[in-house]
C-alpha cells in the first residue's frame, strides 16, 4: 500500500473555512458556543470537537502593506510520530497509508500524546475522558475518497494522493512561487503526511515550529527504556505460565457458592 499525503498550498488558500466545516460535518463533531475575540479565527484553537482550523494572521511588509495569512492547521500525521510512541494503549496507531489514526475505544485518556506532540494537535475531552484528533478521514481514504477537507476545498489549496506524486507537485509549486516559498513537512520526523507549501518563511507562521522534533524525553523513555520494560513484562508472563503449568488453574467455584448462599439468606 503506497503512502498517502495531503498537500496544503497556502498560496491558494482564501480562508473560506470550507475545510473546517466539512471536517465537522463528515466526522459529526458538534459546534460549541463561541464569542468573537477580535479575530476571524474561531474556534480559537484546535479542540476535541474541532480537528482542523484556519489560523488567521496579519503580517506587515514594512512598507505600509499588509499580508493576511491563512493556515489550515490539522494533524501532520508524522512518520516518526511522538503520539504513537507514547500511547500506552495502542489507541494511536499507524495506518497502511502512513497516516496516524485513533481507535477511541482503546484510548484511556492519559494525555501522554497531548504533551508529546510537537504541533499541539491531540486535544483532551474531559467529558468523555478521551483524546480526539484528525485521522485524515480514514473512513474515506480507505474507500478511495479524499479527506472531507480536501473534497470541500474550492481553490485547490488542499490536494491528496500518493506521496511521491504529491511531493513532486509541492516542490514544483514552491519553485514556481520563488522568493521565500518552501516545502514544509518532508524533512523532519521522517516526513509528515500533511505537507505545506509555505509562501512565507516557515518561522513567520503562528504555532508552526520551524524545526519540530519528537521530545528527547519521549525518545529516552520509549526507544531506549521501553524494550527493557518489555523484557521485564515478558518475564512476568513467562513466570505466570510456569506457575500455571506447575500448580494448575485457580479454583474459584467454592467462593462463588458461598456468595449465592449469602444472597439467599
Amino acid at each position, binding site marked *: 500500500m503506497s503512502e498517502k499525503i495531503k498537500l496544503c498550498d497556502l498560496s491558494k488558500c482564501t480562508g473560506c*473555512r470550507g475545510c473546517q466545516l466539512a471536517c*465537522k460535518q463528515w466526522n459529526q463533531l458538534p459546534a460549541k*458556543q463561541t464569542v468573537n475575540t*477580535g479575530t476571524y479565527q474561531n474556534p480559537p484553537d484546535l479542540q476535541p470537537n474541532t480537528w482542523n482550523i484556519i489560523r488567521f494572521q496579519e503580517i506587515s511588509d514594512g512598507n*505600509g502593506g499588509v499580508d*493576511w495569512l491563512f493556515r489550515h492547521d490539522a494533524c501532520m500525521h508524522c512518520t516518526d510520530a511522538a503520539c504513537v510512541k507514547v500511547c500506552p494503549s495502542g489507541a494511536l496507531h499507524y495506518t497502511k497509508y502512513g497516516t496516524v489514526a485513533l481507535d477511541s475505544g482503546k484510548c484511556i485518556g492519559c494525555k501522554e500524546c497531548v504533551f508529546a506532540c510537537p504541533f499541539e494537535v491531540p486535544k483532551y475531552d474531559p467529558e468523555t475522558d478521551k483524546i480526539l484528533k484528525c485521522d485524515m478521514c480514514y473512513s474515506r481514504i480507505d474507500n478511495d475518497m479524499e479527506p472531507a477537507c480536501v473534497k470541500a476545498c474550492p481553490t485547490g489549496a488542499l490536494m491528496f494522493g500518493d506521496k511521491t506524486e504529491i511531493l513532486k507537485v509541492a516542490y514544483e509549486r514552491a519553485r514556481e512561487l520563488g522568493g521565500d516559498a518552501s516545502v514544509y513537512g518532508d524533512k523532519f520526523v521522517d516526513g509528515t503526511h500533511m505537507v505545506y507549501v509555505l509562501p512565507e518563511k516557515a518561522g513567520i507562521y503562528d504555532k508552526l515550529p520551524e524545526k519540530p522534533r519528537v521530545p528527547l524525553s519521549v525518545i529516552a523513555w520509549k526507544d531506549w527504556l521501553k524494550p527493557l520494560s518489555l523484557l521485564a513484562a515478558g518475564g512476568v508472563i513467562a513466570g505466570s505460565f510456569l506457575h500455571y503449568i506447575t500448580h494448575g488453574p485457580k479454583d474459584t467455584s467454592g467462593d462463588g457458592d458461598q456468595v449465592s448462599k449469602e444472597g439467599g439468606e
Partner: protein
Amino acid sequence: MPDGEIISDLFYRIKELYEEEGGPLKEAVTEMTWDYGPKDVDGKVRHLDAHYIAREINGYFLEDKEIKGKLYKKGTLVPSFAYLQDDGSTSSGNWLYCNSYTEKGNMAARRGGKDSSGIGLYSEWAWCWPVNRRIIYNGASVDPETGRPWDEKHPVIFWNGSKWVGDVPDGVAAPGSGRPPFIMKSHGVGSIFGPGLADGPFSEHYEPLECPVEKNIMSPQLVNPTIKRWDKEGTGTSVDARATCDPRFPIICSTYRVSEHWQTGLMTRWCPWLAEMQPSMFVEIGVELAKNKGIKNGEIVIVKSVRGQVDAVAIVTNRWKPFNINGNTVHEVGIPWHYGWVTTKMREYVHGDKKPEVFTFGDSANIVTPFIGDPNTMIPESKAFMVNVERREV
C-alpha cells in the same frame, strides 16, 4: 409562530376591525377569500396549510371549461399557464407558477433522479418556473436557422427534424421561422444597455448620498441625480435622516458579508457550525483610528450613524488604512450585516420555540445603513455611508 400563521392572524384581526368600523373599500378585506387550511365551526382557518396556498398560486378552474377539445371540471388545478383564460373561468396567484401544483401533485416535491438531458438538468427533480424550464432563453443555445446546438456536445435543446428535444424550449418556433430567442426583451436579443434603464451606460464617479466631502472633486455633479429615493421632504422618520459632512459622523462605513453567513443570517445563523465560526456582529477598525479612539482589539464598541446605532466587537486590523481625500485624512470602518435578534440569547423564547444550538450576538447592520436605491436595480446604497465609532461607557 410561522410567518403564515402571523399573516393569517393579522388578516382575521384586520377583517374584524373593518367589519366593526367600516372604511373605504372595506369589501376588499371583509369579502376576501381565505380558505388556506382546515376550518373551525366559526369558519375561521384553524391552522394554515402551505399546500392550500401552493394550489391557489398554481390556480384552479372556477367553472367547467372545454379547452382544446378537453373538458376541465370546476375545481380542477390548471395544468399550465397556456390554459389560463381571460374570461374569468380560471384563477392563478402568479402565472409563472402555474404548473407547479397540478392534478399530478406538488411538482416542487418531486425527487426523480433521472437526467435524460445528459447535461445535469434533472428535469424530474423538484420544479422551476416557468413550466419547469431549467434554462431560460435556451433558444439562444441553438442556430436559429437550423436548430443545431452551438455546443453540440452539451445540447440544452435541439431540433430532431419534427420537434424540439431536451429542456422545455423557450422562444423558439420551428427553426428558420425568425423568432428571436430573448422573448421577454423588447428587441428580442440580449443587451448590456437598453430601453427602460434610468442610468448608464457610461461610468461616472458620484459621491454617495451621505459622504465626507462637500464637492465632488472629479465632476460638478455631487451625487447621482437619478438615484431612487423613497423619503419625501416633510415626511418620514429618523431612518430617512442623512448626515453629509457632519462632524458628528466623520468616519466612512461600509457593509459586507462573511463567507459563513448569507444576508441577515436567518438561515445560516441556525446552523451551529456556521454560528460557531462567526458568532457576532463586529466592526473592523484600522490600527491608526483605534489608537486615536483608545479602542482595544476584542472590546465591544458602538457604531453610530444618524439613523441608529449597533454594538459590535472591535477587530483592530492593519488591513484597513485611512484615505487621503484631497489632503484630508478620512478613516473607514467596515461591518458585516448578518446579525439581529432571531438567534440571540437575549431574545424571549416561549415554550415550544426552537432554540439555536449556538447563539449569535449583536444587531443588524440595517439599523445604521441608509435607504437609497440604485437607479436601475434599486439595490440599497449600503456600501458607503457615514458613522462614528465610540467606546462603550463602562
